[in-house]
């Protein structure tokens, strides 16, 4: 039971308290890139969460079963980026053959994912924090959900922002940054949710 509580805490922590976008500032390129429309934001969220969990699981297995016994932990950046790139390329090919309908919907997000720093940060952090296999997966799920939440909030605001009268030099990205700052400020309210 305590084990379960701990996992739940980890999930909440990764998705709300230490939200990757608002407190770690990771995945911002994607965050600003795909949050213009709700539809793309949703597609990205689903694809991203799924890929993240699979890649974290594979990275954990490779790290624990291959890299630690061989004493090559210093190669982890190269190995992890290789896993992500391979996974993205592989699922791209498999999805195109097996589920073409899904591929046409989500395919373009797959290609974008390999440039997302969160997907690399999660395996690196779960190694750094010495998470167990289950903990790593829960951590990945939480990060994915947190990122999705951020994307959806931002997309719904930006759709309205299109119509707003923004000062000339603030148009586009600068304004998006200021808005993100405000959301981040709101997210600091979650900080007390978990005792450290």
């Amino acid at each position, binding site marked *: 039971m305590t084990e379960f509580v701990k996992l739940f805490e980890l999930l909440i922590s990764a998705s709300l308290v230490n939200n990757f976008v608002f407190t770690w500032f990771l995945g911002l390129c994607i965050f600003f890139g795909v949050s213009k429309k709700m539809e793309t934001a949703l597609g990205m969220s689903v694809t991203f969460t799924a890929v993240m969990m699979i890649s974290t699981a594979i990275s954990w297995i490779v790290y624990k079963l291959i890299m630690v016994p061989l004493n090559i932990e210093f190669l982890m950046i190269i190995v992890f980026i290789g896993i992500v790139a391979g996974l993205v390329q592989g699922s791209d090919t498999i999805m195109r053959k097996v589920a073409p309908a899904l591929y046409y919907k989500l395919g373009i997000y797959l290609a974008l994912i390999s*440039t997302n*720093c969160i997907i690399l940060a999660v395996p690196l952090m779960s190694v750094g924090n010495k998470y167990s296999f289950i903990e790593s997966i829960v951590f990945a799920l939480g990060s994915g959900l947190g990122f999705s939440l951020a994307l959806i909030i931002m997309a719904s605001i930006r759709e309205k922002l299109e119509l707003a009268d923004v000062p000339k030099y603030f148009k586009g*990205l600068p304004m998006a940054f200021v808005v993100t*700052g405000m959301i981040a400020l709101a997210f600091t309210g979650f900080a007390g949710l978990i005792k450290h």
Partner: protein
Amino acid sequence: MSATTEEISYWELIKNGILKENTIFKLALSLCPAIAVTNNLKNGVFMGAAVIFVQVMVNVTISAMRKFIHPRIRLPIFMLVISGWVTVVNLGMDALVPDVYRSVGLYIQLIVAFASILARAEMFASKNTIMPSMFDGIGMGLGFLVALVTISFFRELIGKGMLWGVPIINAKPLLILVLPAGGFFAVGILMAAFNWMYAKYFTKGNSH
């Protein structure tokens, strides 16, 4: 090309990296570290230096090998080169500046996922000889460093009243700027300021 035009074009390459294609303010790429590490000047400077090193070394390596890389597998090879150099920086900084590394370490490792470095390797270094690629790397890296230094300068000065850990302003600081949320505000406002400055001073001068 004669020697003089080449010298000018090196200068142009550096200027291009700092102003016209400034990674952060103009292209809006590699934003993660721009906010994450810039709550004090020291971190900003070291992060910028790490990026310059990686960008220059990657550009040089790729352009030296460009004839041997088969176009179909070029992206995995670029990634491999980038992550190799990032590992070098990562281990180097861990050994040389451990106190900085403790706070920016994760972001150093994530230089691998910088779109800007891959983009320069793909668009510039894989098509040009070594010297122009090196200067292109210096230019892009300097642009990144300038942006990081500007952001962290304002954030540390206003948010803590300090620069490089030394107290400067003897007043109650505006704490929000060193908080995560303040980072977004600072980048948003500086980006708008950069747009304004660029529109006002550089668009006419560049159209000769």
